[in-house]
């Protein structure tokens, strides 16, 4: 409890920032809620990418730089396959591809490098990143591709009676939120209730002990990378349907790094909460803080969205390096 005040101060500052636009009357309630929802939607996507990241880190101690590249690769696969077959089949096939990819990564990268230094493994995932970025283009092409989920994109007005002008939301966003929530619930059940999930948690706790009771590490790694691959695919499909499938997806997905720093590397809850905080935070900062800065300092403005997450993560590293939900270390011998 002793060094909690910097965290609390940071949290308070964020909350004040969140409340200010309303308190000062700079924004109407309706518009404010729209921005908030927009931030949450982006946040959900960050959460998904960060989730894959946290899973891999938890189970194999590997800092998987390639998570963003996996998002792009999966989205490309779905987009191009969907040109030939129905969307659901494209998603099934792409999932199979991600599982195969997990298997190859285990064989070619993880198994030979097991027990090496963390830096070696990080370098290996950097290699995987660039390979996937390039290989994805080789196989699937490098244009901008579309994924059409078949849901009307026109925004609908809701709550017109409550607010002047109502609130603009779109159905697809709503669906996305449901899918993300379902995925998280499914994963939680899988981890808590199944024998495989239990084995995964055991491996995360103590590799050697897990091996000593006959849990084969190699299988577990393939499973966890497959799950991470599937989560990447979900994020990729959603993002791709909104922005188009293109190279920049991999970069946007890198925002998962500040998210896991904020949430804690090994925490699933942390990945989700961290994603939402950063999604909302950067959107709010972009929309409301941007104009203020422009006026006050005569800046060009804009671009806050690009650095906000990293600055926040940096601040967090200073005050709470283990992240919001960093695993409590149980030291008792």
């Amino acid at each position, binding site marked *: 409890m002793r060094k909690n005040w910097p965290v609390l101060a940071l949290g308070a500052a964020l909350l004040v920032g969140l409340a200010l636009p309303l308190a000062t009357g700079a924004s109407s309630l309706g518009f404010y809620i729209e921005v908030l929802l927009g931030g949450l939607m982006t946040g959900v996507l960050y959460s998904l990418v960060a989730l894959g990241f946290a899973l891999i880190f938890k189970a194999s101690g590997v800092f998987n730089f390639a998570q963003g590249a996996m998002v792009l690769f999966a989205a490309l696969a779905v987009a191009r396959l969907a040109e030939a077959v129905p969307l659901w089949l494209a998603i099934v096939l792409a999932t199979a591809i991600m599982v195969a990819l997990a298997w190859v990564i285990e064989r070619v990268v993880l198994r030979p490098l097991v027990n090496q230094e963390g830096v070696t493994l990080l370098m290996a995932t950097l290699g995987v990143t660039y390979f996937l970025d390039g290989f994805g283009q080789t196989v699937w092409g490098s244009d901008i591709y579309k994924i059409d989920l078949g849901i009307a994109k026109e925004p609908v007005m809701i709550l017109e009676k409550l607010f002047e002008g109502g609130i603009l939301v779109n159905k697809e966003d709503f669906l996305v939120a449901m899918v993300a929530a379902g995925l998280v619930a499914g994963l939680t059940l899988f981890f808590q209730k199944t024998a495989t999930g239990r084995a995964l948690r055991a491996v995360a706790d103590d590799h050697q002990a897990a*091996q000593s009771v006959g849990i084969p590490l190699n299988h577990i790694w393939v499973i966890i990378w497959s799950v991470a691959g599937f989560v990447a695919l979900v994020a990729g499909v959603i993002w791709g349907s909104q922005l188009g499938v293109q190279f920049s997806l991999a970069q946007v997905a890198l925002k998962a790094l500040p998210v896991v720093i904020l949430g804690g590397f090994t925490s699933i809850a942390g990945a989700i909460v961290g994603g939402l905080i950063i999604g909302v935070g950067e959107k709010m900062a972009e929309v409301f803080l941007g104009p203020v800065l422009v006026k006050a300092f005569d800046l060009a403005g804009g671009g806050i969205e690009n650095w906000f997450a990293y600055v926040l993560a940096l601040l967090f590293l200073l005050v709470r390096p283990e992240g919001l939900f960093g695993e409590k270390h149980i030291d008792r011998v």
Partner: protein
Amino acid sequence: MTGAPAMLSVNGIEVIYNHVILVLKGVSLIVREGGIVALLGANGAGKTTTLRAVSNLLKAERGEVTKGYIEYLGERIERLTPADLVKRGVVQVMEGRHCFAHLTVEENLLTGAYTRSGAETREGLERVYQYFPRLKERRGSQSGYTSGGEQQMTAIGRALMARPRMILLDEPSMGLAPQLVEEIFEIVKELNAKEKVSFLLAEQNTNIALRYAGYGYILENGRVVMDGEGAALAQNEDVKEFYLGFSAGGRKSFRDVKSYRRRKRWL
């Protein structure tokens, strides 16, 4: 137990860590069906390394068996994975317990049945709770917050869940109060008698180990320097002096004792 067939035989193995550090310099031993065999020796003698060589957890420590061979039920096992060995009935209980700290006691036990079917798992859980009633009381607690004794019981119980025929038990007495050590060894004896589990038991606590073991090996600097029936070892003057603490002059090494004719039967 001299009559029973050899279940496990370690034959002149050399173990090297990190490609350079030679730790075992030709260790040989036999565990017979139904036996409790003690592997004794001071810190760093190579007890844990020997157990790891058998269970194949050595690779995870960047260690390697470079000479000699290991047979279990007539099969060479140096190339098997730890999981393969667990399926064949050999489980190691690691030094320092190594419970899964964030899992509950019961979840810890269940992980031990990873290689078993659902029915076997349920039945196994009942059996473990029979031997360790205390674990049943604490089944919902996070393992990391249970006492050292409870963790040792969890570790042994977890190994039992795999339905082993042989348990490689590494320093069960470590850090436990004498009374608890006694309790644990009583359970080992019971498991040996009722569940027909054979034990290869690494211990620094020579005194208690020799009371329960039918046979013992003494390791020093990666070599077996002495072996014999448990009772005979306990009566041996040198063992008394160096390992049972009956000497006033502090610990010396067998190597310093000129009169002692070292037996190296396997070399």
